[in-house]
């Protein structure tokens, strides 16, 4: 979706201001939101792609007014309600009012470290041969889905070169919406800065994105 999360090239946000000796968290509730999000993610009730969509799918003004972990909290609450795991009146009451729904699994404390160390690889068997190879010139499609996508606006319609191939991976655009993993070939596509930002742009810059095959077409 063309939401506020898609920030590449947007003007007006000002300078980057790194915080010296920044702590990992800035408030205790941030710790809890991170942990609750990861623990609920481990139940298998939704994939990471759905979490990302739940966070970005909100009015731009709201997205920009919230802090990072406030967005995570809102996304988690919405997923829980949408999946029927928590009812809105329970969120209001601050306690459970209805019996729990069965979840696929829970994350036991004893396996938490192991679970993190295993991760959740998105690599999948290739369902078909790759359409592109390293060195190919490709154009990022000019496409504007209202649903989840990982093709940023600033590369759409622009031509670049495939510089790496990463095998087949879970396709976020379908997986975020419950339409299956639909594995797709994943490539790194490198664009010259001037192709993206015009003739005035810095000639020393190259920008690469990781793009799934359906995002790409052969360069004209």
């Amino acid at each position, binding site marked *: 979706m063309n939401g506020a999360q898609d920030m590449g090239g947007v003007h007006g946000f000002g300078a980057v201001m790194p915080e010296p000796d920044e702590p990992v968290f800035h408030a205790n509730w941030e710790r809890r939101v991170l942990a609750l999000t990861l623990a609920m993610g481990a139940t298998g009730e939704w994939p990471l792609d759905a979490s990302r969509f739940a966070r970005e799918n909100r009015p731009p003004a709201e997205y920009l007014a919230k802090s990072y972990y406030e967005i995570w909290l809102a996304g988690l609450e919405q997923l829980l309600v949408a999946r029927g795991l928590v009812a809105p009146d329970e969120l209001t009451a601050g306690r459970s009012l209805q019996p729990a729904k069965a979840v696929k699994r829970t*994350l036991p404390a004893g396996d938490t470290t192991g679970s993190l160390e295993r991760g959740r690889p998105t690599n999948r068997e290739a369902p078909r041969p790759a359409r592109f190879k390293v060195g190919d010139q490709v154009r990022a499609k000019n496409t504007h889905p209202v649903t989840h996508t990982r093709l940023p606006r600033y590369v759409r319609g622009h031509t670049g070169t495939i510089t790496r191939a990463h095998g087949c991976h879970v396709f976020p655009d379908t997986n975020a919406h419950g339409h299956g993993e639909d594995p797709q070939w994943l490539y790194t596509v490198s664009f010259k800065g001037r192709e993206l930002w015009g003739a005035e742009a810095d000639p020393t810059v190259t920008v690469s994105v990781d793009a799934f095959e359906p995002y790409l077409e052969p360069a004209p």
Partner: protein
Amino acid sequence: MVAKSVPRLNNQRMSLAGDDPRLAADHEHGSELSETQLRVRALESILVEKGYVDPAALDVLIETYETKVGPHNGARVVAKAWTDPDFRQWLLTDSGAAIASLGYTGRQGENMVALENTSSVHNLVVCTLCSCYPVPVLGLPPVWYKSAPYRSRAVADPRGVLHDFGVELPPDTEIRVWDSTAEVRYLVVPTRPVGTDGWREEQLAGLVTRDSMIGAGLPKRPQDVR
């Protein structure tokens, strides 16, 4: 001015990069709980009551990211690459396996790619769409990495962003920006500082900063740590 010892304010609107106490929305002082704190507390109670989450697992998750997984992991990878040519070659050709050999694997690092800076090439990593970050080697991302100023400008004006970090590169240095739009995670291997001949791996690791492994900074120099 807010003293560093005072509990920090949550003033990190997504649209801001730094501290602006005027926008503080979430004080954590005394017994006055903010709406957000109350919401989080309520949510945790509900999820624990329903048996969806194990409270002890929450503690492990927090402890892991607050005390165990952090940039010291990546610094060890970089320092080893600086001192061991075979490891460097392995890291650049099969990054995931080389990094896993040091024990760093898992969540948000399932597909690692190491990018080597040279005298003529500088790499900079960003996630314009959210906050994708090589967690097993760097821990959780800092606020600036997740902020709109960095996400908007890193791809369009990387030299300007580097200037914000006090980094000025020669005008002919090639800048390669990597936008982490899928599940590939990037680790920058900065160039080894001059004047470190004969340094041991552990000493060198002390020069490798988090920002230098994102490409937003350079490693410390020997004179910085004396």
